[in-house]
């Protein structure tokens, strides 16, 4: 076989050989001829068809079969035959023929018309006489005689036969014409060109073995070419979770913008999750409907007496109501990562600095295609002596640009612990619409002052799952945590 010619699977070779002697054939014929199982033949046909060595043609053919009346007539003879036989036996009038019972009343017209058409009888002085032509079979008789249970291919009929068929069709229930589909496989020109090389192929080695290599036998061995175009089984590499890909991407962006990563507990005191963020103690977000509290868990507030005193008095002043330390002791699954950020800022009190975190947060939601009880939040803060709202917008713009998002706009909004507050809208090219992404703002003085944080703190953040849904084209956020292998294996690592 010449170099560059395709290698073939044994099944393919068997099929090609069978076709080389008889073309075209049906799949059933090929199975019988090659001794292969039907499913092997079917696979081989698919492969060869894909390579253009064979063509598979679906032929539709009309076949003619005997219908009920036709079958009876084939045994008993056509009415005109029975009539002329009766005439030969001396029954010269229709009345006599009818009386003999060989034809029925309703057959009389057809019998006379047929006998006349064939010129089988003559009328002499009112009496019927059989002619010599009556010795011959009529075309219709010939046609009926050759029809069997297999039927006859209509395309193979002569014009003469077709006329006879039309004639027979006029007789009720004699003839049935059925449409039949048949698949025939035949060699293409490319396939025929392969045939001479097939023989040579059969004596070649399929595998290069250690023995062949070490013994040096490879030198005189002829190796068959492999079917390099044949499909190989799927391999599933180990891989990171697609959401983790995004988390890592976000971390890289933060690091690139000069942010330092921070991390902290997922279970937080109400004090840091809410009170330190100036969220009033009767705020709806603090209710069990929205927030998960750990059953029966209260802990001493993890803050200095000075911090507690200052924060409680700012609540009294700002919200005009008593501040209850017990409420601040309740342990809550953090509803945002901001308590972690804030504790870090309170601890190091930086003149300036940039910090970020990516972590899980919790909301007591009814799980649905758009809500989870637990999701990832990304958060960045930047503080500097002259940090401004425009800087915050600039950081945001840069962050998005690094995520490949170019078109953004800002709207004012409200968060309990930032002022001014903005929300960012980004243009999604795929959806062709503006979607809401991260929220942002400058920490309120009521948040920073009690903790001794002097300079404005710019903060922004939001859920990562939303970005993941946009990126992966998901309609249902639950897919991200379904761990369906089919999905995990299908998501491309890089978006081209």
């Amino acid at each position, binding site marked *: 076989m010449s170099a560059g010619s395709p290698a073939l699977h044994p099944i393919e070779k068997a099929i090609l050989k069978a076709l080389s002697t008889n073309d075209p054939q049906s799949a059933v014929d090929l199975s019988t001829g090659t001794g292969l199982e039907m499913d092997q033949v079917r696979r081989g046909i698919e492969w060869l068809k894909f390579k253009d060595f064979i063509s598979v043609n679906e032929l539709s053919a009309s076949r003619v079969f005997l219908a009920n009346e036709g079958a009876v007539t084939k045994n008993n003879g056509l009415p005109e035959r029975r009539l002329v036989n009766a005439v030969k036996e001396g029954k010269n009038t229709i009345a006599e023929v009818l009386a003999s019972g060989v034809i029925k009343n309703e057959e009389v017209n057809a019998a006379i018309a047929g006998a006349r058409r064939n010129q089988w009888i003559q009328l002499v002085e009112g009496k019927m006489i059989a002619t010599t032509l009556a010795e011959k079979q009529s075309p219709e008789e010939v046609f009926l005689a050759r029809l069997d249970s297999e039927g006859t291919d209509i395309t193979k009929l002569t014009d003469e036969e077709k006329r006879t068929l039309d004639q027979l069709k006029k007789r009720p229930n004699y003839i049935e014409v059925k449409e039949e589909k048949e698949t025939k496989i035949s060699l293409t020109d490319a396939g025929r060109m392969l045939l001479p090389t097939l023989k040579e192929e059969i004596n070649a080695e399929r595998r290069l073995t250690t023995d062949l290599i070490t013994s040096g036998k490879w030198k005189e061995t002829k190796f068959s070419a492999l079917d390099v175009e044949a499909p190989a089984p799927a391999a599933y590499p180990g891989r*990171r*979770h697609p959401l983790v890909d995004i988390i890592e991407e976000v971390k890289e962006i933060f690091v690139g913008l000069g*942010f330092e*990563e921070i991390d902290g507990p997922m279970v937080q005191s109400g004090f840091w999750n809410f009170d330190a963020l100036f969220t009033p103690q009767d705020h709806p977000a603090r209710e069990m409907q929205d927030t998960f509290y750990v059953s029966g868990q209260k802990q001493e507030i993890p803050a200095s007496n000075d911090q507690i005193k200052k924060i409680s008095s700012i609540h009294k002043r700002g919200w005009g109501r008593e501040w209850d330390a017990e409420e601040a002791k309740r342990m809550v699954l953090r509803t*945002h990562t*901001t308590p972690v950020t804030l504790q870090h800022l309170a601890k190091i009190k930086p003149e300036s600095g940039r910090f970020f975190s990516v972590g899980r947060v*919790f909301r007591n939601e009814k799980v649905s295609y758009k809500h989870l009880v637990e999701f990832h939040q990304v958060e960045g803060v930047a503080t500097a002596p002259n940090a401004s709202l425009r800087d915050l917008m600039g950081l945001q713009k840069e962050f998005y640009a690094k995520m490949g998002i170019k078109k953004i706009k800002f709207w004012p909004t409200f968060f309990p612990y930032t002022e*001014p507050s903005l929300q960012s809208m980004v243009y999604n090219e795929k959806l062709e619409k503006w979607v809401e992404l991260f929220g942002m703002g400058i920490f309120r003085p009521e948040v920073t002052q009690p903790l001794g944080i002097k300079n404005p703190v710019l903060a922004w953040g939001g859920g990562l799952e939303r970005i993941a849904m946009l990126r992966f084209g998901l309609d249902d956020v639950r897919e991200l945590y379904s761990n369906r*292998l089919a999905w995990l294996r299908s998501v491309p690592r890089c978006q081209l």
Partner: protein
Amino acid sequence: MAQERAKMPVVNITNDRLKKFVPGVKVDKVLDILPFVALDIEGVDSNVIRVEYNPNRPDFSSDYGIARALRGLLGIETGMPKFKVASKSGQAIRVDPAVKKIRPCIVALVAKNGRLDDETIKQLIAMQEDLHNGVGRRRKKASIGIHNLDAISFPIIYKAAGSDYSFVPLGESSSMTIGQILKESEIGKQYGHILDKFDRYPVIVDSAGTTLSFPPIINGDITKVDTKCRNLFVEVTATDQKAAEDVLAIIAVTLQDAGFEIRTVSIGNREMPQMRPNQIAADINYINGILGLDLDARQMIMCLKKSRLDAKTRGSKIICTIPRYRTDITHSIDIAEEVAIGYGIYNLEPTFPASTTAGQKNLLSTYFEAIRETMTGLGMLESLNFSLTSKEVQYDSFGIKASDMLSVDGSKSIEHEILRESLIPSLLQSLSRNVHEEYPQRLFEIGKTFRKNGEIAESWNVAAVVAHGEAGYTEIKSAIQALLKTCFGKDATTKAASSPFFMSGRCAEITVEGKTVGMIGEVTPPALERFKLRVPVAGFEINLSALTGA
């Protein structure tokens, strides 16, 4: 930054009313400008714009309030809206001290000579609902009754009554006792809990003995408001005087915008509503600094006027006058935001502050990266499961009698009611969801685990499972050895042990330098059965925090 805005209240504005509020302004222009007064467009159809507002702006609870802001930013009408108290109504409410312990505060106003059409009534009812839910904290803190003034004989008394006290509640044709209302009516069942602790109940009764209201549950039927009403009486009862006055101020300005003359009502020698504006001084440099702008005093005053505030300069400061209904403005930082909104957020150019420090991931992230690389190199697929799981998955599936589990209160789903102590059950659950997929299946997860240890102790764990016809102890031991060696240069040793997850005799503790850091083994057949798994599964879990101290 939290997404606090999941459940925002909505106001409907019809195009007909919009035309009157902002004459000559096209609907498209309004839709463009609404987001810049912090209003989200929730939906638009042929005749109505549905607008979401943030709960810090209860004055946006009717289309009148939204119109005030729109007119400002569009320049149709700027500065603080004029509020005029026509006169004292001369009417009074007497407060019986018995209500002090139940619902101590009451304020009220009289609104005269207005006209109510269906749409105005709709707006007032929607406003009332929003105020109940927001400032009123689902009526607990404050609730509102709006009445037909002409059905009332003054003076009024706000007093406490027993559960057998009866009157005809709104929408009913016959008298019911308070006890019946609380037990039998829908509204009573919904809000009755607010009065649970009490055996006396607040009622507002006029001099003819007519019951106006049983706050915060329901009004009396007799003072029902309809389109024929020209004169209104509005009362707000509350547990907190400030909340009551805040709510009343918003209602007062709204009714004035709706065409009523507002008259005061005397309560304990004070005339209500109190509409005196507040004043806040803010440093011009401070505001410019926060916003990153360089506005002079005149420009800043202009911006504030577009935000419907009044302002003047005093030295280097702006003295800002804040109408009583803007309860959200309490600090000079709030003035900065009003300047930004008046300036137009769309006019703010982002500036990028160059970084002066190098960024860095923390140590934990570095560990995670190494672990992920090693585990994926071993052909494992990373899973992500929730920290909140079910008792069924975490404990019952392994016959563990949990005595110390950490659960959360009031979870809306039994699938998320406890904090997981181990990752292995979650991974088995993941395998369970993939029984129809091709084997071998190899999964790992890095996740937080939670344990009650006096206080709540959190640790980062790494776990892996392998599942296929030939899966067993040796394969998973090779994996943990490779992980500890590659990531941390440590040798793992295994010591026979027992665990509810693993078969006895095929289970070990993983120790590193004599310290136990995890467990390894072949999953028990009963557990496999629980998770509907038909192939053997082996797994390990290590406590990364114990290993690394991170």
